[in-house]
């Protein structure tokens, strides 16, 4: 079973040379730490930055320089600032190659729910609806099952949707799956996890073809 860092490491392998990538809050933010050194990748922060760097050294925080999670950050050489209209403009125009974000539920047709739980305080969707509606390629980092052991990979989302038919790939603590017209297609198992365990943890349609390899991380 993967921990958060394992999920982040596995997702990092999906990033390719020359990609512009938007990383959501939580596990997706961790992905930045595992992009191979020397690979040219530019991180977009939807509040208005291309070329996000690591956190600043202690004492070098700048209140004017934050990411979409409101964390203090730095920039790398070749960065550019812009306003939020242009930021979401480039997102809508599909200039961002890969969007990585978290989810509470995903359905087997690619719907995603990650912003609202009825009965709980609703904080808002932020930029998530814009990102999922426009992204060329969306990878979701999420837990396969909730604390009660119930699957979060469903035939249909129970929670209010963030976007429809948009998710392309899912990386969980148990598996890597693609969304296909036939449902979730199992691509890889987490180390030590059996196909049976993944089957039991997946409520939506699950396509298993041939031998499913164990994922390789590091």
């Amino acid at each position, binding site marked *: 079973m993967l921990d958060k860092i394992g999920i982040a490491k596995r997702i990092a392998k999906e990033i390719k040379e020359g990609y512009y990538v938007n990383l959501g809050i939580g596990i997706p933010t961790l992905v930045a730490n595992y992009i191979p050194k020397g690979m040219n990748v530019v991180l977009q922060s939807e*509040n208005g930055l291309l070329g996000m760097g690591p956190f600043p050294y202690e004492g070098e925080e*700048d209140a004017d320089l934050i990411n979409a999670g*409101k964390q*203090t950050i730095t920039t790398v050489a070749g960065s550019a*600032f812009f306003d939020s*209209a242009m930021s979401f403009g480039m997102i809508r125009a599909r200039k961002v190659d890969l969007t990585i974000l978290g989810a509470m539920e995903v359905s087997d047709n690619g719907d995603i729910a990650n912003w609202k739980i009825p009965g709980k305080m609703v904080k808002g969707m932020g*930029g998530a*609806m814009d990102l999922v*509606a426009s992204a060329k390629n969306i990878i979701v980092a999420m837990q396969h099952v909730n604390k009660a052991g119930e699957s979060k990979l469903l035939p249909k989302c129970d929670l209010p949707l963030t976007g429809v038919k948009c998710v392309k790939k899912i990386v969980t603590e148990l598996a890597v799956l693609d969304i296909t017209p036939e449902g979730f297609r199992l691509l890889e198992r987490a180390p030590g996890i059996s196909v049976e365990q993944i089957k039991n943890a997946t409520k939506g349609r699950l396509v298993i073809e041939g031998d499913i390899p164990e994922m390789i991380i590091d």
Partner: protein
Amino acid sequence: MNKTVKNADEAIKDIQDNMTIMLGGFGLCGIPENCIAALVKKGVKGLTCISNNAGVDDFGIGLMLQTRQVKKMISSYVGENEEFERQMLTGELEVELIPQGTLATRCLAAGYGMPAIFTPAGVGTEVAIGKETRKFMVDGAEKEFLMEMAFDADFAIVKAWKGDPHGNLIFRETARNFNPMMAMAGKITIAEVEELVPAGELDPDCIHTPGIYVHRIFQGSNYEKRIEQRTVRKRN
């Protein structure tokens, strides 16, 4: 042109009860601290505030929530604020949550004289309820869009890094965020700046908001520029 006013009190003096105002900033970054303090002091009530976030309990728009000056918030994300949560749950505060890009683009539409725009954000979700949808061809496939209307705000209040008496503005780093679009979108736009310089000192090639969009400008003071999430790494 000289659009300079003395201070925040003078800049906001004609903001009346029940008006709609836009406030720039993302989180606590790039917010008009001086004008928010002046609005609290003036005690104007029943405001509809268009702002991406609602501050924290003791800073930003949170200060105007403490004093019950806000009737309605139009935002994309309103976490990190207990008083906000309390007022929302008791129904004292009306809240309209809209996608961040939609918020930004509805400001842009107002500033660019476009009555409405089309966005795919929120299609198939509760955000789409009651809204007109329309299909367009995108990259050879049909895609559905929502029609979203330009904002109509009595005042826009923005915070810039530098400005001049013409109202030309330059923002710094990610403190730019929503400020340029809101500056364009207000019927009356107030800009507070960290540094007000004489006309001619700003590089005309580097101005983010041309002065034509700004009606009043002043140099603010005592900027706290609070950091919401201080994240750092250790030196090796």
